[in-house]
């Protein structure tokens, strides 16, 4: 009987420990690769940004345009469509690209369509409320030379517990005047995901 109580007591303790689900948080390097579910994650976003920035800055379109225009081209971000099977925030790698290009001094960016609406509303507000010497004028915006557009596509192949996901990100810089494509960049990412069919 005594042995029986001991076994029950130890089993209960083990059960309690097994059921404890305290949250544990630790800081990790933002460049470290951690894949949990196989879905699109920060590493994929970073890889796309790095590849696109390198490709964009090292292609001849830039020097050709500088020669033609005589100054750094101005770019506006257009629509980058998510045509994949996951809800992906494409803004993460677009912002990385934008920041890298601005910081390199090679390209200037102007506000995109949604931001411009907000900025114009502010200008309208200033027109009636701000002092004359601080008020900003309408019609002084810089027109962009190029628009950055693109899409993110994915293909999924699966059989039972195995899955292969292929992502392709295509970005294009298009001349707003001539509609000529001056640069096309792409990045492909392929993932193999294997799920275990049983666990304890």
């Amino acid at each position: 009987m005594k042995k029986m109580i001991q076994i029950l007591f130890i089993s209960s303790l083990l059960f309690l420990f097994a059921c404890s689900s305290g949250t544990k948080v630790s800081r990790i390097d933002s460049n470290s690769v951690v894949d949990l579910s196989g879905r699109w994650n920060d590493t994929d976003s970073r890889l796309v940004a790095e590849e696109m920035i390198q490709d964009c800055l090292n292609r001849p379109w830039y020097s050709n345009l500088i020669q033609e225009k005589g100054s750094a081209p101005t770019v506006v971000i257009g629509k980058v469509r998510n045509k994949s099977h996951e809800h992906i925030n494409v803004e993460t790698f677009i912002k990385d690209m934008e920041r890298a290009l601005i910081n390199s001094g090679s390209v200037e960016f102007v506000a995109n369509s949604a931001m411009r609406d907000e900025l114009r509303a502010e200008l309208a507000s200033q027109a009636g409320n701000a002092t004359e010497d601080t008020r900003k004028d309408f019609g002084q915006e810089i027109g962009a030379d190029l628009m950055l557009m693109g899409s993110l596509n994915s293909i999924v192949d699966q059989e039972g517990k195995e899955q292969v996901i292929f992502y392709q990100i295509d970005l294009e810089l298009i001349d707003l005047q001539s509609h000529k494509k001056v640069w096309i960049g792409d990045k492909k990412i392929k993932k193999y995901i294997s799920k275990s069919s049983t666990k304890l």
Partner: protein
Amino acid sequence: MKKRLILIALSFFLISCANKSNLRYDTLSKSYKKNGFDGAIAKIEKEEPKLYGKNSSFLYHFDLGLLHHYKNNWKQSIQHFSQAEKIYEDLFTKSVTNEAAALLTNDNTKPYRARPFELLSLYQFQILNYLAMGDVDGALVEVRRAQISMQALYQKDQKKMNENALLHYLSALAYEIDGEHDDAALAYYHAARAFHENKTKIPSEVFEFISHSLKKSDRAELLHKLDYQALESTPKADHLEKTNTEIILITYLGHSPILGELYMSGTFVSGAGLNVNYKDPQTGKRASATFIAPVVAGAGGTSFHVGFSLPEKRMLPFQASKAIFTLDKKTEPIQSEVLMDFNHELTRNLADDRSSVITKTAARVVIRTIAAQKAKKAASTDNIWLNLLTSVGTDVLQSQIEQADLRMALFLPNTITLTRIPVEEGTHQLSVNILNNNNSVISSLQLNDIQIKKGQKAFFFVPVLR
């Protein structure tokens, strides 16, 4: 003494395994009747552990996703449905411990994995959530996720994979809104194929849009393979092609059936046959069925008497059966057509699973009967009264352990209708009447001053579950 302690422990274990499905329905139907969708949402959020628990997390999020969808709370609905989908995906990996526990007790001890029609309807509601928000890219992501999910279900069990016409039709609609007419045509074809495979008549408006799209993309011959003939005249679809502006009216009518218990009893001979008798819930008459019995270790050639409960469709009373509407008070009332019938889906799902559930449950009962007999023998003493008490207690415990898995989504409608109404840009009025089977109006909705811009697709939802 030791054995009696085990019996007491088992009793406590049984209490913890109590079936929550009936409690969930009783509690939430009261809250819904009293305070509508808000009441049900509040009750679910307040009493989640009691009503759902860890093993029914999928249903917790599914029910909340659906209730928020009815309330036009698109973002909350999306969050809950996404969470439900994630839970479903994570349950791909089966827990050996849970499976073993289910083998000894019942299926309620396993995490709920969703019935195929529930999973596919999750994508339907997600597509509608995104389209209602005007996020076509988001809707198309759900369309692609649905395709992957359908493929996985098809690979898992081809025979039990039921095509979902509404899901394909919504996919076609999303592609069309996006201007992807080739993809839309293929999705329309899949919708036609789903109706064909399900032996369901294609609603006339749906067939007009299918015909129009397939003819336009030179794919009309695909319909011949399904023994359909594309319509010569498609005036509504032609008009919509020109205006590209429409009101899309979706109604959720009545309440889907839920699950009740069906008691079966009969004889089980390991590796040979299982004969069961039961009262047919459809006819009310006694019926019997024979199945091949799986081999149960230790059962030998002994004939076992078995009794167990199975999930069976339980119809709920509701009045809403049709929706008629008029636009701008000009047109004759038009009746919306049914694209999805959850009563039909549940009936088919139960029929698909019946044979495997019966044999699995009967085998489980036999395993427990053998274990109970061994337990009685081991607990036997010189006192005949104590032996009798132990024997009765063991039998009662055994019968109490077996509970049918009655889990399913609680707030699905009985039917879904969808009507596309081409309109010109400007201001419109929409009157919707919900009728019962006697054609009496039980609910009305008047939408005045609907501002429609050129090229807009305006979605309106009318849920009447009562």
